[in-house]
C-alpha cells in the first residue's frame, strides 16, 4: 500500500523584487515520507517553509522541481482531493454565507445532497462546537469561530489524510484542547493527520514523528524524543515558602535560582540532579511545590543553533544571494 504522503526533492523558488527580479528559494529539496494512520508534526519557526510545503501539496502553487504524491497519486489529482481535507493557515471564507451554507456548498462539490448533506453538516458543526451561530453570516464570526468552521470543512468528506496548517492558531485554550482531542480522535479512526505548527508543545502532545524545517530546508526528522535538540536538558522547579537559609544550602546543586516573589523561587536544575530528591528535601523543610517542568530548547532556539552550526552556507545559495540583496 502506498504511503499517505510522499515528498521527493520538492523545491520552490519565487521571484522577488519589482524591477530587478531575483530568485528566492522558499523550499529547498524537501524529502519526506508519512505513513498512513500517523499524526505527523511539521514544525518550524515562521517563514521556515511550512505553508509553502502545504500549498505545494494542495497544488495552490507549483514546484520549481521535485514531486509529491498523496495516497500514491500525484498531487492535484481530483480523485485524491475526494479523499483529503485541508485547513489553510488563517482560513478565510465567503463572508456572505452562513456556516451551514458554506459547508453545504462544499458538500455539493463532493456530491452530497439532501438529508445526507444536511446531516453531515450538522454533525460536523456540532463536533467543532458551532451551535446556534451556524445560521449567522460568517462576517459576524470571530477568528476562533472561523478556525472551527475551517476545521469542519476539512473533515466534511471523512478524509483519509487531513492537512492542517497551524490548526491551533486563533483558538483560546479551550479551543486548543478541543482540537488536540479531535486530532487524536482522527488518528484513532485510522486517518493520517499532517499538521504544521511553530509550537513545540502541540507536537509533543500529539505526534509520533515530526519534521523540522528551517530556512526552507529540512533540519531534522524523526521521533521527537530522538531529536537531540528537543531532549530534556534540565528541570525548572518552582517552589514557595522557601527560606533564604534553605536556598543557600541547595544553591550549589542548582544551575540558577531566580526570586519570583517573597519566598517563591524558580530553581533550574541540571539533568543529573533528580528533581524528586530536591523536591523531597525542600518540602521536608516547609516549602510547597508550585510547578515542575522539563527544560528543553524551543523551536526558535533550535533554529538559531541550526543556522549557527551550519555556518553561512546553511541557506541555499539561491536564497543567500537574494537575501544579500535586501
Amino acid at each position, binding site marked *: 500500500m502506498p504511503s499517505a504522503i510522499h515528498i521527493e526533492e520538492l523545491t520552490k523558488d*519565487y521571484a522577488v523584487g519589482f524591477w530587478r527580479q531575483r530568485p528566492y528559494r522558499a523550499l529547498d529539496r524537501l524529502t519526506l515520507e508519512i505513513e498512513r494512520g500517523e499524526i505527523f508534526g511539521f514544525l518550524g519557526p515562521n517563514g521556515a517553509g511550512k505553508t509553502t510545503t502545504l*500549498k505545494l501539496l*494542495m*497544488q*495552490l*502553487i*507549483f514546484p520549481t522541481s521535485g514531486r509529491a504524491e498523496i495516497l500514491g497519486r500525484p498531487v492535484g489529482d*481530483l*480523485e485524491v*482531493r*475526494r479523499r*483529503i*481535507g*485541508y*485547513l*489553510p493557515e*488563517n*482560513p*478565510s*471564507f*465567503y*463572508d*456572505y*454565507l452562513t456556516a451551514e*451554507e458554506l459547508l453545504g*456548498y*462544499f458538500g*455539493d*462539490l*463532493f*456530491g452530497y445532497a439532501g438529508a445526507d448533506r444536511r446531516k453531515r453538516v450538522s454533525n460536523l458543526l456540532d463536533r467543532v462546537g458551532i451551535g446556534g451561530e451556524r445560521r449567522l453570516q460568517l462576517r459576524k464570526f470571530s477568528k476562533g469561530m472561523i478556525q472551527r468552521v*475551517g476545521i469542519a*470543512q*476539512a473533515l466534511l468528506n471523512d478524509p483519509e489524510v487531513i*492537512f492542517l496548517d497551524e490548526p491551533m492558531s486563533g483558538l483560546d485554550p479551550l479551543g486548543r484542547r478541543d482540537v488536540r482531542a479531535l486530532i487524536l480522535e482522527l488518528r484513532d479512526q485510522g486517518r493520517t493527520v499532517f499538521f504544521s505548527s511553530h509550537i513545540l508543545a502541540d507536537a509533543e502532545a500529539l505526534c509520533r514523528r515530526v519534521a523540522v524545517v528551517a530556512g526552507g530546508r529540512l533540519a531534522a526528522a524523526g521521533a521527537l524524543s530522538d531529536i537531540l535538540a528537543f531532549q530534556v536538558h534540565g528541570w525548572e522547579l518552582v517552589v514557595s515558602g522557601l527560606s533564604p537559609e534553605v536556598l543557600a544550602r541547595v544553591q550549589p546543586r542548582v544551575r540558577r535560582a531566580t526570586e519570583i516573589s517573597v519566598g517563591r523561587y524558580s530553581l533550574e536544575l541540571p539533568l543529573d540532579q533528580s528533581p524528586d530528591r530536591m523536591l523531597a528535601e525542600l518540602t521536608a523543610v516547609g516549602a510547597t511545590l508550585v510547578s515542575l517542568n522539563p527544560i528543553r530548547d524551543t523551536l526558535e532556539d533550535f533554529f538559531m543553533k541550526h543556522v549557527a552550526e551550519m555556518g553561512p552556507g546553511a541557506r541555499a545559495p539561491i536564497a543567500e544571494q537574494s537575501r544579500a540583496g535586501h
Partner: protein
Amino acid sequence: MRAIRVVAVNVFRESVRDRVPYNLVVFAVLLIASSYLIGQLTAGQDVKIIKDLGLAATSIFGLFISIFIGIGLVSKEVERRSIYALLSKPVSRSQFIAGKYAGLVLTLAVNVSVMAIALYVILAYMVWTEPPTIRAGWDAPGLDPALLKAVFLIFVELMLVTAIALFFSTFSTPIVAAVMTFGLYVAGHFNADLKNFEKVVSSQAAARLARGAYHVLPDLSAFDVKTQVVHGLPVTLGYLGSTAAYGLAYVAALVLVSTFIFARRDFK
C-alpha cells in the same frame, strides 16, 4: 459538470446577497418616472423614446453588473483567500473558471429578463392608455416582439464583456481589470472606425496598428440593433445568428485563455 453548476449557483447567490437585484428597482423606477414625464411632453413619439430608453438602460445596467462583478470574480477569491479551501475540494481550476463565468451569466440572464419584462409592462400600459389614432402613427407596434431581438444581442454583448472582465480578473487587480474592461468596451464600440483608419492618418505604422487592433478587438457595435428595432426596421434572424455566433466565439476564446492563465497561477 456538477462542480461548474455548484460554483455558478454560489456566484448567483453572492450577487443576490451583495444586493445586485436592487438595480432592478432603480431600473423600474427610472422607466416608470420617465414614461410619465415623456407622456406629458410629447405626443406620438413617446413610445419610441420609452423603447430607446428601456433598451439603453438594460444595456447600461447590465454593463455595470458585468464589469463590477466580473472584475472581482476571480481576484476577490484570491484576495480573501477563500480559493485555498475551495481548490482543495474536487474542483479543477478550469471548472472553477467556467463556474464563475456561468454564475455571472446566470445573474445577467435573470437581470436582463426582468428588465425586459418591466419594459414590456410599461409599453403595455402605454398601448392600453393611448387612443387608436395615435397608435396607428407608431413606426412599430407598442408591444413589438422585435424588441426581444435587441434584448438578445444586448445579452450576448454582456456575455462578451463579462468574459473580458473575467479574463483580466484572472491575473490583475480589480482596478486594473475595471479600467481595461471598460477601455475595451469603449474601443469595441468604435472598432468599425479602426478598419478605415488609413483614410484619416498618413502614418503607415499607425494605420497598420489600427488594422491589427481591428482584427483583435471585438466589434461591439454589431450587437447594437436598438435603433433598427425601435424604428421598426428589419433585423433578420440570420444577422442575429451570425452576430451571436461571433460573440460566443469570442467568449469561448476568452474563457479558454482565462483558464489557461489561471491553471498556471501560483497563489502565494
